């Protein structure tokens, strides 16, 4: 497989994404949104949609998208994760993945709306069930649920799309990770459209996309800790010269770079339609989540007391890391999936 061959276009995309998120998702911009349980910076999102084509990044060109690869999507999400971007980018790319794997006119219509910036959220907690084409139930932890026009309801074996019109009620949920906007959505016999397709591959793609975002946050947590270790002086020398700190950061470097390899190998597997995806996707998802938790946690430790202050960004990455342990399933369940796909027999 041709993983890790970075093209000049991808280098340019990376630079563009980094430039964009460093601006619209600067620490000040992120902090400005911390108190908002439902919203996000709509101006920034409009720019993402219309200037950079990020909403429709992986939407086919004939549906007004940018027609980018999953590797491209990973590149952009990595930078979004690095800057803790809180707009509906991950949701849009996840929805794109699901819809592309369930081809048909209905999906095409939704993809076109997506590319135009409409927010499509995912229900992933199994809180809704379908009866006679009507969806009912309460689904929680829906990312961007407050601002979504459409909800995709993911099951293990089926998938539905429902328009979040007045029939649905949404209630913002205050997330521990303040940079992520969650909601409870309650549906009462909402008309739903069934989406048929390769749901297994769709789930795998979601894992890859999330892993890319987690990777970016981990990289930044590491970078912040390294910078601090070089600058902070105690006992007459930079604390990064002490083995206790140096070795902790070296171990973290190994983890973060390994997570990067996992993400881009997985993205390449997705792009090439490789069978390896079924193992690589849950692997990358579980691993990046754990690497981010380690990076954010060790990052707090390296920063010492200052990490305990609200003003310092270390805690924002720690919050993102804790969310990465549970949002869209935990690392344990992804490792169990990997074990099954490696041929370990199911426990009776």
């Amino acid at each position: 497989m041709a993983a890790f061959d970075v093209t000049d276009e991808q280098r340019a995309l990376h630079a563009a994404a980094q430039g964009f998120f460093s601006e619209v998702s600067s620490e000040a911009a992120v902090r400005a949104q911390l108190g908002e349980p439902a919203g996000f910076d709509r101006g920034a999102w409009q720019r993402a949609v219309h200037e950079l084509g990020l909403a429709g990044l992986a939407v086919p060109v004939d549906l007004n998208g940018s027609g980018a690869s999953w590797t491209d999507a990973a590149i952009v999400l990595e930078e979004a994760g690095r800057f803790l971007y809180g707009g509906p980018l991950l949701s849009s790319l996840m929805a794109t993945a699901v819809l592309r794997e369930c081809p048909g006119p209905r999906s095409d219509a939704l993809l076109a709306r997506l590319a135009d910036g409409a927010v499509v959220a995912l229900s992933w907690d199994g809180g809704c069930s379908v009866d006679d084409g009507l969806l009912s139930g309460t689904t929680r932890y829906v990312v961007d649920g407050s601002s979504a026009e459409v909800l995709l309801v993911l099951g293990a074996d089926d998938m539905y799309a429902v328009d979040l019109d007045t029939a649905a009620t949404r209630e913002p949920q205050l997330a521990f990770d303040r940079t992520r906007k969650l909601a409870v959505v309650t549906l009462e016999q909402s008309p739903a459209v069934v989406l048929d397709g390769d749901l297994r591959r769709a789930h795998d793609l979601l894992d890859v996309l999330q892993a890319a975002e987690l990777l970016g946050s981990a990289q930044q947590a590491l970078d912040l800790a390294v910078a601090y270790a070089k600058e902070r002086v105690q006992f007459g020398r930079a604390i990064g010269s002490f083995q206790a700190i140096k070795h902790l950061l070296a171990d973290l470097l190994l983890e973060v770079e390994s997570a990067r390899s996992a993400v881009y190998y997985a993205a390449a597997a997705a792009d090439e339609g490789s069978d390896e995806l079924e193992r690589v996707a849950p692997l990358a998802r579980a691993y990046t989540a754990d690497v981010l938790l380690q990076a954010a946690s060790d990052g707090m430790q390296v920063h010492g007391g200052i990490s305990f202050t609200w003003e310092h960004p270390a805690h924002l990455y720690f919050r993102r890391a804790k969310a990465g342990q549970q949002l869209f399933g935990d690392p344990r369940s992804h490792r169990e999936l990997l074990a099954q796909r490696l041929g370990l027999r199911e426990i009776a």
Partner: protein
Amino acid sequence: MSSDATVDLEQARAEVRAWLAEHWDPNGDKRAFNELLADSGWAAPTWPVGRFGRGLPRAARRVVNEEFRAVGARGTGQDVTNLFAGVVLAHGTEEQQDLFLRKLVSGAWRGCLLYSEPGAGSDLAAVQTRAEPDGDGWLVNGQKVWTSGARESQVGLLLARTDWDVPKHKGVSFFLLPMDQDGVDVRPIPQVTGGAHFNEVFLTDARAGREHLLGELHGGWRVLQTALGLERQIMGSESSGGGGSRTPDPESPWTRVIGGVDYLELARQEPRDTEIRQRVAQMYTLEQVNRWNGLRARAERGHGAASPVASLGKLAMSRIVHTAVQLTATMLGPEVLLDGPEHPVASEVNRSAFAAFVTSIGGGTDQIQRNILGERVLGLPKEPEVDRDVPFREVRKAEATRRFS
């Protein structure tokens, strides 16, 4: 233990019981009781007579404690727990003891710690707050951080630099700084948990009088060692039961609850898979061995032996709290994504995830603890110290100030 000692203990028990019967009224005025208590010597029974103690042996503490607990009275045990009075007793002149001890033992005055600075965390000897001679006292300028209780305190234990032309340890002095003065500006530090338990304290021409210098001028490092030793002793006795600041209950098989959630109760609620079961058993093990270490340290101290176990508690507790938080979060599942009063369990567990860093960073990071254990308990050699013999003025230093609030 000799039978003479046993007799003494029983006599002490009779005396404290009689004193409590006479003076303790659960519905009475607490402040008045505390004044009486200070004068009675029962607040710090092992301290000298005339210095708010009764000159009793260490073994008497338990007896006195039992009697206080039996009637529900508080305020004894200060010979172990009152760091502020303890350091004054150890290093104060007679005049200073007269001036401070009674106020501190009776609780009329409270104290806070003015050691850490933005540029001096793990490396306390690098303080840059300066105390400069002024008349018959000093003018103090600088910034301290991580001070809890600063606003409620009358006395701050202050470490400040009085000589910049000698190596760092040799140029610091220790002061009992009066907190209630214009030069002292206390500002709470907004924390990641949303609270503000700690403060920064800005000192701008704050005045310390002659009577506020504790120990020798430029001899503050020695005083600080006493104060840190007392603090470790307090933390050790708190952690010895594995129960944070709660009294260890040896009858209870587990004494620790993370963020209001007992991980063991949680684990019992439904059949858990083998991986969780292994983690629960490991978690319980970490907790129990730490509790037993505490009991063992106490027993070894009782035998007059120096116990290496006593110094393990802080590092052990760091792993315990971090592990417990993660295990609890794993069992709770996606609920921990949430925060706020509508989700009290999740928000408590999440708050605890942050609080765990207070244990692994505050009062000496895990890394510093490992240095201490390696050097003081195992006798391993120190690292080369680049700032050891260099005048502090020439040492590479961290920034002295930073505004958190």
